[in-house]
């Protein structure tokens, strides 16, 4: 179990580093798919099969296909290095070191408390998630539904080509 976790964690971290490091946007998108699949496998080992399937369907299936479509549609050049904003290097390095130190402290603190996995086999199947979703947490789910509707409308408004308002201009000239 530990060996599987180490392999999957290494795959996830390696693919994430590759995603950030690659200059070509298409390569980083493919690396990101690798991260998602490794995380989905980790969810399976954490007894969350529903979330694992949803991860592959939503992230690797829908979102990344959309991203790759946009990359191919825009026909991007390779990325340049940071030129104008040199201070961003220092900010980024400081942020990364700070977050890693925080992670290390969290690791040590949680290790001392030594929480063990609860033997609860029903938590995580689709039935218990559905029960929680439509009884106790109905309001957040409804809000997410409204958010999805707003996303549909917003994406259509963002991506359409605006027509020139000719009629208005004629009226203004007169």
């Amino acid at each position, binding site marked *: *179990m*530990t060996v599987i*976790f180490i392999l999957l*964690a290494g795959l996830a*971290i390696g693919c*994430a580093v590759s*995603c*950030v490091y690659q200059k070509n*946007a298409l390569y*980083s*998108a493919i690396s*990101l798919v690798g*991260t998602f699949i490794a995380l989905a496998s*980790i*969810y399976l080992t*954490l*007894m*969350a099969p*529903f*979330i694992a399937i949803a*991860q592959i369907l*939503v992230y690797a299936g829908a*979102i990344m296909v*959309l*991203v790759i479509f*946009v990359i191919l*549609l825009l026909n991007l050049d390779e*990325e*340049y290095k940071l030129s*104008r904003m040199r201070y961003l*290097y220092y*900010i980024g390095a400081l*942020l990364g070191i700070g*977050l*890693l130190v*925080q*992670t*290390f402290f969290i*690791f040590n603190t*949680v*290790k001392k408390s*030594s*929480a063990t*996995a*609860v033997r609860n086999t029903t938590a*995580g199947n689709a039935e218990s*998630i559905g029960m*929680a*979703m439509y009884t106790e947490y109905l309001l*957040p*789910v409804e809000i*997410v539904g409204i*958010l*999805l509707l*707003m*996303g549909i409308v*917003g*994406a259509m408004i*963002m*991506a359409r080509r605006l027509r020139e308002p000719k009629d208005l201009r004629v009226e203004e000239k007169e």
Partner: protein
Amino acid sequence: MQPGLESYLALSGILFTIGAVGVVFKRNAIGLFMSIEIMLNAVNLSFVAFARFYGDTTGQLFVFIVMSVAAVEAAVGLGIIITYFRNKSSVDVDEASLMKN
């Protein structure tokens, strides 16, 4: 034997760090978008790990909600990127200074 909660939290923290550093270093708008996705996935991993170690389904429910928000973000964000590319012919975020001054 299963690794403890701290291993999953460490993996989540490392992935979040990679995503945050990527957001600062990338110039490409699509690269920024993918770094944000890495950060969202790191948070999802810690949700699922807590749900497993405390035997509660709520964490997994909120992972589902985070996924929906990420899908909405993908749709609207990529729409913004396409509109920006149409106006500027590039997706370099350093050049997005229309509202400066």
